[in-house]
C-alpha cells in the first residue's frame, strides 16, 4: 500500500530539487514546457472533464494569453510580470464572451461552436498583422527580470521555478475548486443534467462559472509561454496544439484534474524521447497516435484510473463492495 500524501510530498520535493541535480538548460526546458502544458491540460479538464462541457476552443484562451503578453510587453511596455495576471483576466473575459452563445447548446454543437471560436481567433490574429505580426508573430518579447537578474541568462533555472510554482498553484487551485461544492455541482450537472435541474441547479450559470474559471490559469500559462519563449506565434492556435493538450487530458484521465497535469509531463518527455531518433521522422507522430489509442482502449480512465487502482487496492480488498439488489 502506498501512502498518498507521502507520495505527493515526495514528488514535490523531487520537482524542487530536480534542477539542482540535473544541470543544464535542456532538461529544465522540457520541464518548463511540461509545467505550462500541465496548467492548460488541467484547466481544460475543469470544463471538458469535470463539467462535461464539450469545450473544444480552450486553446483559444491559451492563444489569447500568449498574444496579450506579446502585445502588451512589446507595444505598451508593460512589465512581463504584470502581464501574467492581466492575461488571465483577458482570457476570462474571452470565456465570458464565448459562453454566451455556447451555453444554450449541447453536446456536439458545443464542440462545433467552441472550435469555430478558436479558428476565428486564429483568423483575427493572422489578419491583424500590425498588432500581432500576422504569420510571423511577435518577436523580442522581454524576458522576466528581478532587478538585475535576467531570467533569460540563468540556464533556465529561474523559469523552472516560476513555472513550477505557477503550475502547482494553478493545479492546487483547480483541485480545490473541483472538490468544492461548486466542483461537485459541476460534476452533478455532468453526471445527470436533468436530475440536476430538478434539484434547482442553474446549469447555465455553473457552466459559465466553470468556463470563466478555467480560462484564467490558461491565460496565465499562455502569458508565461510567450514570455519564456520570447515570441508570440500563431501556431499556438493550431489544430496540433489542441490535439496535443487533448491527448494529455484524456490520457491523464478526464475529470481528474491532476491526471492531465501528470500526463502533460509524461507526454512532453515521451515525445522528446522520440526526438532522440531522428530517423523516425514523421513516424514518431504515428507511434504517439497508436499509443494514445491503446491507452484510451485499455485504460478508459487514463492515468488517474491506474493510479486510483494503485492507491486504492488495499482499501478495496477490505470489503467495501457495495450491496446489490437481489
Amino acid at each position, binding site marked *: 500500500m502506498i501512502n498518498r500524501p507521502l507520495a505527493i510530498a515526495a514528488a514535490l520535493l523531487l520537482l524542487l530539487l530536480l534542477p539542482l541535480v540535473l544541470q543544464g538548460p*535542456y532538461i529544465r*526546458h522540457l520541464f518548463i514546457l511540461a509545467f505550462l502544458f500541465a496548467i492548460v491540460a488541467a484547466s481544460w479538464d475543469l470544463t471538458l472533464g469535470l463539467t462535461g462541457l464539450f469545450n473544444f476552443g480552450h486553446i483559444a484562451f491559451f492563444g489569447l494569453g500568449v498574444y496579450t503578453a506579446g502585445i502588451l510587453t512589446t507595444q505598451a511596455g508593460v512589465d512581463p510580470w504584470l502581464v501574467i495576471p492581466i492575461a488571465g483576466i483577458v482570457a476570462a473575459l474571452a470565456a465570458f464572451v464565448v459562453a454566451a452563445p455556447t451555453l444554450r447548446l449541447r453536446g456536439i454543437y458545443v464542440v462545433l461552436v467552441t472550435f469555430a471560436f478558436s479558428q476565428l481567433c486564429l483568423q483575427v490574429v*493572422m*489578419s491583424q498583422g500590425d498588432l500581432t505580426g500576422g504569420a510571423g508573430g511577435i518577436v523580442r518579447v522581454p524576458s522576466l527580470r528581478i532587478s538585475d537578474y535576467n531570467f533569460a541568462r540563468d540556464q533556465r533555472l529561474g523559469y523552472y521555478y516560476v513555472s513550477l510554482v505557477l503550475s502547482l498553484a494553478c493545479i492546487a487551485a483547480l483541485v480545490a475548486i473541483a472538490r468544492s461544492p461548486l466542483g461537485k455541482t459541476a460534476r452533478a450537472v455532468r453526471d445527470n443534467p436533468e436530475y440536476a435541474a430538478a434539484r434547482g441547479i442553474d446549469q447555465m450559470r455553473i457552466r459559465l462559472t466553470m468556463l470563466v474559471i478555467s480560462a484564467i490559469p490558461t491565460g496565465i500559462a499562455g502569458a508565461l509561454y510567450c514570455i519564456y519563449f520570447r515570441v508570440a506565434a500563431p501556431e499556438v492556435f493550431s489544430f496540433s496544439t489542441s490535439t496535443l493538450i487533448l491527448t494529455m487530458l484524456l490520457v491523464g484521465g478526464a475529470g481528474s484534474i491532476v491526471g492531465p497535469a501528470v500526463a502533460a509531463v509524461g507526454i512532453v518527455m515521451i515525445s522528446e524521447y522520440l526526438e532522440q531518433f*531522428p530517423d523516425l521522422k514523421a513516424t*514518431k507522430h504515428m507511434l504517439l497516435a497508436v499509443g494514445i489509442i491503446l491507452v484510451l482502449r485499455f485504460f478508459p480512465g487514463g492515468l488517474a484510473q491506474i493510479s486510483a487502482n494503485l492507491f486504492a487496492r488495499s482499501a478495496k480488498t477490505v470489503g467495501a463492495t457495495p450491496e446489490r439488489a437481489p
Partner: protein
Amino acid sequence: MLTMALSSAALAAMPALAQEKIARIGILAPISGGAAADGQDTQQGATLAVEEINAAGGVNGYKLEIAVADTRDLGPAAVTSAVERLLSDEGVNMVMTGYASASNFEIEAMAEAGMPYFLAGNSAQTAEIVAEAPDDFPTIWSFAPSYDLYETGIMPVIERWQSEKKLTLANKKIAFITSDNPYSKSIYEGMMEDAKARGWEITATEVVPFGEINDWRAFLSKTRQDPPAVIVNTDYLPGNAATFTSQFLENPTQSLVFIQYAPTVPEYLELTKEKATGIITSTMVGVLPNERAAATNKAYKARYGIDASTYAQALYEMVYIYRDILAAGVDPTDRLAVAKAIGEVKDRVTALGIVSFDPKTHLTVAGDDFMPLQIFQVWDGKRVLLSPARWADGELQTAPWLKK
C-alpha cells in the same frame, strides 16, 4: 520515461570515440509537419556536403557529423525544444538551418548560448533581431542578404527591357497581389511604392491570407476589367504559384506575369511543366546558373534523385564554409572563433552568389557583385537567368500568351 529521456540525452552527449575527432553540426529543419519538403532539402543538402568532405578524408583531422533536430510545425515549443536539444549536445559547436521558424526568434537563444548559428531564413526578420545591437549577436550570421533590393530592383529591370525593345507593354498599368506574411507583404508594399514613384497606374491590389490558396480567379477577374501590362504576385508558396499560373492561363490577359520566388523552386517547374513558360520570377536566395551550382546539383541528383533546391544548395555551401574554417586551423570547440571566421568570409563564390558579410546586420551583402537580385524567366520547364548580366544565361522572350 523520464530516466529514458535523460539517459539517451546523456548518450547523445557522450564524447565521440577517442581515435577519431568529430565535429558535429546541428541542423534545425522541419522534418515532419507542413514544411517537411523544405526540411528534407535542408537536411539532404547538408548531408551531401558532409559525406563528400568525409569521403575526402575529413578536414584537419576531423570528421564531420550531422545532428538533425526536427522543428515540426515551426511553433515556439517545437523549435525551442529542438534548439535546446542541439545546445545540450556537447559535440555540437555549430548550428545551421534553412529556416527554423517563421520569425527566426530562436536567434536569441542561440546568441545567449554563444552558439555559432548560420541561417538562411527571412533576412528581414533576422535583421529585426540582430541589427539593433549586432555586437550582442556575435555568433549569428545570415546566409540570406537584405531583401531591400526586391522592392526597388525589379521595376527598373522591366522598364529597361521596355526601353531596349525586348518587351512591348500595352500600357503603364500594374496589378499586385500578395499573401499576408511579412516576406511577401513587404515586397508587395515596396514594389508598389516603387511602381507608383515611376508613374505606373495600379489597377488592382489584393491581400490573401497566408497558406494554401486554391482560387485566384477573383483577383484575376478583377485584373481583366482593366488589363494591366504587368501582374505581380508576391506570394512565395510553390503550390499556390502553380495554381495561379494555370488559372491565369485559363483566360490570359496581355500581361507580363511576375511571381515572386516560387517559380525558382524545382517542384514548381515539375508541376507546371511547359505551362509556366514565360513567367518571370526573382529571388535573392536562389541558385545561379554557375558551374558550382551545376556540379552540386549533379551530385545531389545522383544521390537523391531530385534537383537541389535553394535550401539544399544553401546548406551545402554553409557546410563547405564551415569546412574551410576548420581547414584554416580554427578549433571547432572555440565557438567564438568559428563565428568570427564566418563573419570574415569575403568574396567567396557560391552557388547562390558571392558571399561577404555586412558587420552591421550580420547579413550577406546584397548586390550584383555579391548576393545578386536574380531575375529569371521560366522557359520549357527551365529557369533562364536574365539579370544580373554577369550571370545571365539567356534573353527575355515573349511569353506564349502575349501577342507579338
